[in-house]
Structure formats: structure tokens, C-alpha cells
């Protein structure tokens, strides 16, 4: 258990540093690349919890697709090589207060809800267990999400059409 705690600490520290990099850099592309580190750290935390499948979904979807689309969009429109001063503003302190408040609320909520929960992570959780949960226990939310995404897709097509 000690090894997991140490690994969690290292990963969490790296994620915090990278997340600060996302909001502090003046270069949009650098911000997107810092975000890759944050999301990879999230995937690594899932592996620490024994959730291999969720971790690699995180890598495939967020890093392999979402960030790629971010970078693609940035590079298709501007692709600035140099820092852009207009990305900075004077709202650092209000932003810091908001971030700390949010961290406090979410943290106390999670601690209150799960501080007695123990997860057995001596073996990684098998993919079959995850899929059984999705397609048996949570089949209705899963289908609802599917319909919602379809509606968003159709909406995007309607908005993008010229005629």
C-alpha cells in the first residue's frame, strides 16, 4: 500500500504542476501540451486503482482524440509561435480563490462520501467486469448518453450546413 501512496503523491504533484502550467502559459499550444500531462496523470491514477480499461480509454479518447482535435483546431486557425500577451489578464487572485473554494467543496464532498470505502486492488479489475456493469446494471444511463451524443452530433451537422 505504501508504494501506491508514494506513486499517488508523485503523480498528483506532477498533475498539479502541469495544471498550473496550463493556466499560466501565454502560449496556447504549450497549454494544450501541458493538458496532455494532466490527462496522462489521470490515466496513471486509474491504473493505481486497478482500473486498466478506464485508464486506456482515458488515453485513447482524451489524449488520442480530444487533445489532438484541440491542437488541430489551434494550428488550423492561428498556430502562434510566440507567447501571446492578450492571453493574460488581471484576474489571477479571484481565479485562485475560486479554484481553492472548488477544491475545498469537491474534496470535502468526496472525503465525506468515500472515506470508509476500501477498494481491493491486489488484482487489476477485469474488462469483462466493467462491460458487465455498463451493459447490465447501467444499461439505461448508457443508452441515454448514447441518444444525447447522437442529438449533439445531428445538431452539429445542422449548425455546420450552409444551405
Amino acid at each position: 500500500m505504501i508504494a501506491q501512496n508514494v506513486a499517488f503523491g508523485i503523480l498528483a504533484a506532477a498533475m498539479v504542476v502541469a495544471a498550473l502550467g496550463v493556466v499560466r502559459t501565454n502560449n496556447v499550444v504549450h497549454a494544450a501540451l501541458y493538458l496532455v500531462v494532466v490527462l496522462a496523470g489521470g490515466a496513471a491514477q486509474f491504473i493505481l486503482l486497478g482500473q486498466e480499461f478506464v485508464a486506456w480509454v482515458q488515453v485513447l479518447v482524451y489524449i488520442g482524440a480530444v487533445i489532438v482535435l484541440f491542437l488541430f483546431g489551434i494550428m488550423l486557425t492561428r498556430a502562434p509561435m510566440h507567447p501571446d500577451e492578450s492571453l493574460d489578464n488581471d484576474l489571477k487572485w479571484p481565479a485562485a480563490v475560486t479554484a481553492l473554494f472548488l477544491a475545498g467543496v469537491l474534496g470535502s464532498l468526496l472525503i465525506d462520501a468515500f472515506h470508509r470505502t476500501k477498494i481491493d486492488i491486489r488484482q487489476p479489475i477485469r474488462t469483462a467486469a466493467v462491460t458487465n456493469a455498463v451493459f447490465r446494471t447501467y444499461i439505461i444511463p448508457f443508452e441515454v448518453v448514447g441518444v444525447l451524443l447522437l442529438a449533439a452530433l445531428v445538431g452539429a451537422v445542422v449548425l455546420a450546413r450552409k444551405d
Partner: protein
Amino acid sequence: MSESVLLALNIGWGTTLAIKTVVVLAFIPAAALILGYTFLLKMMSHMQSRLGPMDPGGFHGWFQLVGDGIKFMQKEDLMPAEADRRVFALAPAVIVISTFLVFVVIPAGPRIVVQPLDVGVFYALAVSSLSVIGVLMAGWASANKYALLGALRAAAQLIAYELPLVLAVVGVVVQAGTMNLQGIVLAQQGGHIFGWGGIGNPYILTQFVGFGLFMVASQAELTQPPFDMPVAESELVAGYMVEYTGFRFLFFFIGEFGTAFAFAALAATLFLGGWAIPGVHGTTADVLGPIVLFAKVMFVAFLMFWARFTYPRFREDQLQALAWKWLIPIALVNILATGVLKVWVK
């Protein structure tokens, strides 16, 4: 690396991890050089009547690869003045690491696999998708419009062909009932063709549609002709790697051919039965497995490079239309048919 052999030697997990890492790290350049030598230098020379690579060193131009290596080593390490130095230097490493991670799950024998992950083939496809980030980093950090155009084309292409690649594999996963590559090999070995189990059931017999889709999509993922718009030399010089020289360029070369080897190994494992040999089990299979897998990999790679050296380049709109209008619908129908047959036939 065999888990039980290492346990028998009574060494800790740290040492095991180090040995496994070294084995994979050593394997990638070797794999890239084997494919580069056999297909790029020799097969291409034969097919396209190129005399140059057949000349150095006398017999069949065997010295060409060494000569190329020496040439790359002594080139100056150039970096454009406007380049984003850190991102520019990091980009080739991201591509090679993404290749490196794929090799972790490919089994070469009943006990010869670095780590038999339960998520197996899904993991392989997830980490291979990371190379797009490296391509975009390289293209942007070069501060060169040709490089940026190449990176954008590469990203558009890799996003489009990621889908048919993943969907082509789903048919195999449904039929085998597992994503673990070792499990997929064993399912093929223990399969039957109309009740006859002599050679098992290589999934190319039932998943031939998936095999075709996988080959086309992996060709596009490798940005090889006819899908080489991102590196089209007549339009973009060399696309996203135009500003890279010497050792950094060698990284891209190793990444490209190492990934070709990895995709060929995935195709051989998923569709051609992997390391399995009919009637051979246990330690004998551990010894013969890598040889059999290597032979199959070379066969699949031969098909890939045959297409590479034969066909002219697709136009960008043809390339996107092929992925979205043909490959993805065919893959979805294939999944549906496999699912229905799986439940129906049992």
C-alpha cells in the same frame, strides 16, 4: 520475457522490469532496421529498378544500411532559429515511445510476452494513437509552413483512420471473446473449421473483411503510400519532419518502421494465429513461437510494403471519403454480422 523463467531465476520485480524494458528497447531499432533493410532497400530496389542501394559493398548492396547509419551519425544537429526548442526536441521521443509501448503486449510464445494485459489489443491501439501528438508537436515546433501543413494533414488522416482500425479489431475481439492478445492466439489455436481442428481457426478465414480493413487502416496510420499526403515530397518536401536532421531524423525513421513492425505483428496475431503452431505446446512452442511469429510478421509487412511501392498517392478528399464513406460503414456491418453469427452459431 517469460514470467515463470524469471521467477525461477529468483530475481525481484525491479530487476524483472529492468530486463523487460531493455529487451523491448533493444528490439525496436532491430525491428526497424530489419524492415528498412529487407523492404525499403532491397524489395523496393528490385521492384522499381533502383540501382543505387544494390551497389555498395558488392553482394546485393549489403553495405547500404551501414553507410546510411554512418551518414546519419555525422550530420549536423540543426534546429531552426525560430523553432520552439523544447517541443522540437521532445517530438521524436514521443513518437518512438508510442511505438515502444505497443510491443509490450504482443506475445511471441505461450510464456514469451512482456506483459499479458487483460485489455491487450485495446491498449495497443490506445498507445499507438499517441504518435499523432508527436507529429503535431514536430510540425508546429519547426516554425515552418510546410511542416505545419504536413502535421495538419497527418492529424486529419490519423483521426479518420483510427476509427476503422479500432472497429476492424472489434470483430476479432467478439469472436475470440477476449481482448487479451494471448487469449486471442489461444482461441484461434483451439478453434475448429467445420469441426476439423487440424490447424485451429485462424481468424483470417472468418474475419477476412476485418483483415482487409485493418491492413488499409494501418497503412494510413503509418502514413505510407498511397496514404502519404502528410509527407508528400512533391508538395511538402517531407512534411512534419522537414526540419529534422541527423539523429533526430533517425528517430522518426525508427518510429516509422518500428510501428510498421508493430502493426504487422498485431495483424499476424489477430488474424493469422500469432505464434501458434498446430500440435506444438509448452517449451517447444516457446522456442519455435518467435520464429513462426517473425515469419508471419515478414509476410504481412511484405503485403504492406508491396502496396507502398506500387500505388500512387490519394488526394486529400479521396482519402477522407474512403475512411468515412466506405471503411467505417463496412466495419460496422462486419461487427453486426459477427455479433449475430456469434450468438446464432455459438
